[in-house]
């Protein structure tokens, strides 16, 4: 196994949703990665969940996320369009405790 992850190659140019160590959710297009799972995310925006209001989206642009901060690199499918983000209420994710 030479590459970062059991095949992050298959996710390149796809929209993914990254959960970070501090509990943030960042969605964007995977442009690149390396063996340490550092990733390059284009057209990224952060989804802020709260129990009081619907999901907030903050536009970020082109981002590099360091590998040791990545919890889950999800494969976002078009199911995403079925979600009504303004109606979602949730507690923010917890940060990672090692």
């Amino acid at each position, binding site marked *: 196994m030479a590459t970062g992850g*059991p095949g992050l190659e298959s996710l390149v140019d796809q929209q993914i*949703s990254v959960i970070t160590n501090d509990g943030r959710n960042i969605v964007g297009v995977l442009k690149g990665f390396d063996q340490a799972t550092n990733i390059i995310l284009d057209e990224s925006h952060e989804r802020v969940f709260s129990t009081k209001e619907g999901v907030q989206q903050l536009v970020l642009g082109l981002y590099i996320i360091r590998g040791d901060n990545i919890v*889950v*690199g*999800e494969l976002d499918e078009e199911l995403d369009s079925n979600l009504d983000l303004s109606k979602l209420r*949730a507690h923010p994710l*917890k940060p990672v405790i090692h």
Partner: protein
Amino acid sequence: MLFFSYFKDLVGKEVTVELKNDLAIRGTLHSVDQYLNIKLENTRVVDQDKYPHMLSVRNCFIRGSVVRYVQLPTEGVDIDLLHDATRREARGG
């Protein structure tokens, strides 16, 4: 190397991965690598109401460093095989 080989044999089984941020994800083990990064297919979060963050996700990649537990199906575990393998590893290591 032992657990890497062990997980390779579990590919195709249903597992639940509990992460260090308390999130628990159930899915079919698709692949694993030398860092024990895990790729799951057909995923659903265990407590979907509490964690709607992954509602539109069916497949995911989980970095090995954030895994707390990997819950396995009991039928999928050959305890004697594991005992032998661990003994061999302990002797050689």
